[in-house]
């Protein structure tokens, strides 16, 4: 029996456990498992390691309870067929319109995962087989997943395309964050216009501008972080400027304080006007005003 290790990094809110380096005796290629990224059914946060099964392990009973892939009924996936797939935890195998197995995954909510896949890659989700796993701890789910994959590979000699290492078709990617705006091309470049003019232009050319300490992906101050969190949570499209960046925004801190007549950071501008700092944004957020004001 081939030995294999399965490991996963600890997931961030939108990232997933990844299992790699599944090598069978007939295949040297690596396999990957991606479960659907969704905070509603986030997979375990600990590193998973495959341990050899002791004879009395509970989940060997689970694996025996799981039907073989070939003996499991194929269900057509459609948005109307929600009732046909349970919301339990388990393993699933997705087939495309040609009846080819595309992907084997595990989840804590079969129905939700499969519907999500259907929305994301409808052309690959024609029908599905599901195997509910009783007592679904991460080991049991992984075992079920391996069992079905092994069965498929043994029968066809192929790894499902979606499970190949590096394949991200079935993974919901976290949206990449915008980068921060820079006021100048660099300290070494002589400015031809005063900094105030650059600020003025920036806040008037961009609908929402947040002057924060640090970058939007790594704010350096609790107040700035809160403002970023509020804007992001409301889905506001905004530009961010790092006032601590001495290379590209040299002198911004002092100049901006005079420009806005406001002594602290962060500062949020809408349509060229100062809305306020963290307190004001927080107060607006609590009143539910942020979305309406910033997303008109």
């Amino acid at each position, binding site marked *: 029996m081939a030995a294999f290790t399965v490991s996963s990094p600890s997931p961030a809110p939108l990232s997933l456990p990844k299992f790699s380096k599944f090598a069978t005796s007939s295949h040297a290629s690596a396999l990957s498992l991606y479960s659907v990224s969704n905070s509603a059914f986030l997979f375990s946060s600990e590193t998973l390691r495959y341990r050899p099964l002791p004879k009395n392990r509970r989940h060997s009973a689970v694996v025996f309870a799981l039907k073989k892939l070939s003996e499991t009924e194929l269900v057509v996936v459609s948005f109307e067929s929600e009732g046909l797939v349970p919301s339990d935890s388990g393993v699933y195998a997705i087939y495309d319109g040609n009846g080819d197995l595309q992907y084997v995954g595990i989840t804590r909510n079969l129905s939700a995962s499969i519907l999500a896949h259907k929305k994301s890659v409808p052309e690959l989700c024609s029908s599905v087989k599901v195997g509910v796993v009783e007592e679904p701890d991460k080991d049991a789910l992984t075992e079920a997943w391996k069992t079905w994959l092994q069965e498929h590979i043994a029968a066809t000699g192929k790894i499902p395309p979606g499970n190949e290492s590096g394949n991200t078709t079935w993974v919901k990617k976290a949206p990449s964050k915008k980068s921060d705006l820079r006021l100048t091309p660099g300290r070494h470049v002589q400015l031809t216009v005063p900094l105030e003019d650059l600020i003025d232009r920036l806040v008037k050319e961009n609908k929402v501008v947040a002057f924060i300490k640090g970058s939007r992906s790594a704010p*350096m*101050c*609790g*107040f700035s972080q809160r403002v970023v969190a509020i804007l992001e949570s409301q889905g506001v499209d905004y530009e961010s400027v790092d006032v601590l960046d001495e290379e590209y925004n040299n002198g911004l801190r002092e100049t901006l304080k005079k420009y806005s*007549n*406001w*002594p*602290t950071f962060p500062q949020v501008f809408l349509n060229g006007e*100062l*809305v*306020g*700092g*963290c*307190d*004001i944004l927080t*107060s607006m957020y609590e009143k539910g005003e942020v979305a309406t004001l910033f997303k008109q």
Partner: protein
Amino acid sequence: MATRTLCSRANRIQTQLQTALQATVLEVEDVSYQHAGHAAVRAMEGGVANETHFNVKIVSPKFEGLNLVRRHRMVYELLSGELQSGLHALSITAKTPAEAANCAT
């Protein structure tokens, strides 16, 4: 001659705001210790978080008719001396007496 301020910053803030705003409620809280790891604080002498971050809660009739930005600006202007001498951040709650009565504290 030792230039020891007789008044702490909290006291000075309290006095300035009370007189100018005729506040019915005025609470000034020094929360500098909560920001002790802050870069600006570390740069200060001894790296001790000293009178750099404050929370102020003000209820004053003078805020009537002013939006939040203007209320906060009013407070900042009253404290401009402090802001230039080491006051780093101010968390402001500025309400009119009517608003304060509406909210349960």
